[in-house]
């Protein structure tokens, strides 16, 4: 295929995909008898038009940054980690245990401990599929998917039988004690004089997510491990010939990936719900795959892709609240964006290439 200039690859291709997805979505909205312009403006305004909207958009985006980074790190080593869902769920278990059973004096210390626990639990959950891939050749896609189900069943058992307060009907833990509550973005910005809507779930974890972006950038492009990881991803035989241990690199990469997915739990479990509920991940692990694909496995790209998906989630919620557009159609819109920016990426790329590359040749 024609080589596209980098700016076109990074900006034009996703943008065209997005426009296609939205055009098709608006047609669907129109076909169900609603006003597409109304729906579009409601989604955009609802997600980005107020600090309230941003409070939710950034909350969802924080989740997607973590799971997107998790998929991206593994992807650089040619490992397809589909297990973000389970790793984030188990990370949530780590957060819940740390927050429930240790009395923390202040949220800062609790945050550090919960971050460590979330990362550790997520990493350990990724360790078993990683070991099976490295030592036994069991394909990582299959094992990580299966571990999602095992994680769901495990959480189910723990929540229903061990952590549920007596008499409660929700399969969920008790509320975390007050010192383990994280400050929301609204509280933090209001404290320094920037007005921001209160009662929105975006919280200090966003900062942790941004730090994670920088960490991943340095890890992949500025460290020896990152070099080994990318070399292993490009060509395994060449990497082995160069003296890179494939077992070690597979296991370390997957553990970093699992830890990143696990970190998502400090946002949704500790920051938002302040207790561990069943099914707390809500598909963010899978959205992370689309985010990583759209963001070209680069932290900056992932940041923007996560924001886009965050806005889609929040915009979709506003559609549900103020119109009679059915919930299923909102999911269709979200799915179309994933389809066009992720799965049909090559179709869009060849279209863009036809427009951009050929005329240049004619000139030459």
């Amino acid at each position, binding site marked *: 295929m024609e080589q596209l200039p980098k700016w076109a690859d990074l900006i034009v291709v996703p943008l065209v995909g997005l426009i296609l997805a939205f055009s098709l979505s608006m047609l669907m909205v129109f076909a169900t008898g609603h006003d597409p312009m109304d729906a579009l403006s409601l989604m955009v305004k609802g997600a980005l038009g107020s600090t309230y909207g941003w409070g939710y958009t950034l909350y969802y985006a924080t989740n997607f940054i973590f799971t997107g980074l998790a998929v991206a790190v593994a992807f650089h080593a040619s490992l397809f980690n589909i297990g973000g869902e389970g790793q984030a769920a188990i990370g949530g278990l780590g957060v819940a245990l740390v927050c429930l059973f240790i009395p923390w004096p202040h949220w800062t210390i609790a945050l550090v401990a919960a971050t460590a626990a979330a990362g550790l639990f997520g990493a350990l959950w990724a360790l078993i599929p990683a070991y099976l891939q490295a030592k036994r050749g069991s394909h990582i896609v299959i094992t990580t998917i299966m571990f999602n189900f095992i994680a769901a069943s495990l959480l189910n058992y723990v929540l229903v039988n061990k952590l549920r307060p007596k008499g409660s009907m929700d399969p969920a833990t008790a509320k975390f004690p007050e010192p383990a509550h994280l400050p929301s973005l609204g509280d933090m910005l209001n404290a320094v004089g920037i007005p921001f809507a209160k009662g929105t*779930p975006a919280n200090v974890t966003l900062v942790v997510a941004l730090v994670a972006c920088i960490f991943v950038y340095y890890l992949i492009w500025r460290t020896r491990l990152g070099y080994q990881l990318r070399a292993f991803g490009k060509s395994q035989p060449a990497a082995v010939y160069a003296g890179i241990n494939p077992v070690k690199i597979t296991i370390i990469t997957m553990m970093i990936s699992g830890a990143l997915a696990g970190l998502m739990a400090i946002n949704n479990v500790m920051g938002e719900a302040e207790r561990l509920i069943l*099914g707390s991940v809500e598909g963010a692990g899978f959205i992370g795959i689309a985010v990583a694909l759209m963001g070209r496995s680069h932290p900056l790209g992932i940041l923007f892709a996560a924001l886009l998906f965050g806005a889609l989630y929040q915009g979709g919620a506003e559609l549900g609240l103020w119109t009679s557009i059915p919930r299923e159609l909102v999911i269709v819109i979200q799915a179309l964006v994933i389809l066009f920016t992720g799965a049909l990426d090559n179709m869009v790329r060849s279209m863009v290439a036809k427009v951009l590359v050929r005329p240049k040749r004619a000139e030459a």
Partner: protein
Amino acid sequence: MTIMQKFLGAAATMALSAGAALADPAIIFDLGGKFDKSFNEAAYNGATRWAEETGGKFAEVELQSDAQREQALRRFAEAGSNPIVMAGFAFGNALGEVAGDYPDTSFVIIDMVVDAPNVRSVVFNEHEGSYLVGYMAAQTSKTNTVGFIGGMDIPLIRKFACGYAQGAKAANPDTKVLSNMTGTTGAAWNDPVKGGELTRAQISQGADVVYAAAGGTGLGVLQTAADEGILSIGVDSNQNYLHPGKVLTSMLKRVDNAVYNAMKDGPGLETGFNVMGLANEGVGYSLDENNADLISDDLKATVDAVAAKIISGDITVHDYMSDESCPSLTF
């Protein structure tokens, strides 16, 4: 530029229509969605009945994620919706957080108790209704074995089972009560195949009447019972029509009435603890042309006498949720 103008125009229309929604009631459906043929749908039916009778309008939303519970509550409250009705115990936590921030808005929560001055907590005496159908099951059973199939294993469903077992034992102390739960997660509400398997298992143990308190899973129970030639008992709504002549009766839980009453009472509704029992027709059993042949006049007279005794207090049905134990059934 023109697109921008269209945006602004649309936004203005939106703001206007939001203004028009002032003081209309709102209803929030849980993650299961409003057409679940069970609990949420009953709530939806109550709301539409109110809308049809009064010509009023109500705002509604089906949630997609847990974080949206509080969001939907706050957004509706800020837009002026009043009262705001929510169907399901899972809203308890979110409502506890939100209720205090909107003291002028009335909230109604079904199946859960939230202690706040502007909240009406509607709970049902499912154990009383279950006692009646348990009584009927034991009277009808020829094998002296009756079955119970629950959805998700939560205290609320054990409350159904416990009432049922007490009723069955009261009708005939020798009755054997079999009890199974479909699962421990939300998926247990919608697994008709497993419902059917559990029914077959109970039939092989001798059951000839099974009571399903399992949402969508119950449809599989009723189907299998009809296929295998035994009787079943429906739940929540009147499910007698699903298999005419093969459903003994249905334990009615009038969630629709709770929603309808809340919307009819309007913004200044009476808050506090609202118990819907046999006395105020919150629970009961169904009798229509589909099961008329199954229920003899004798049986009907006996059951109505039992119901009257429960209402008068001569019979007390033990509520599982009061102490998490059941005298007639072990889980």
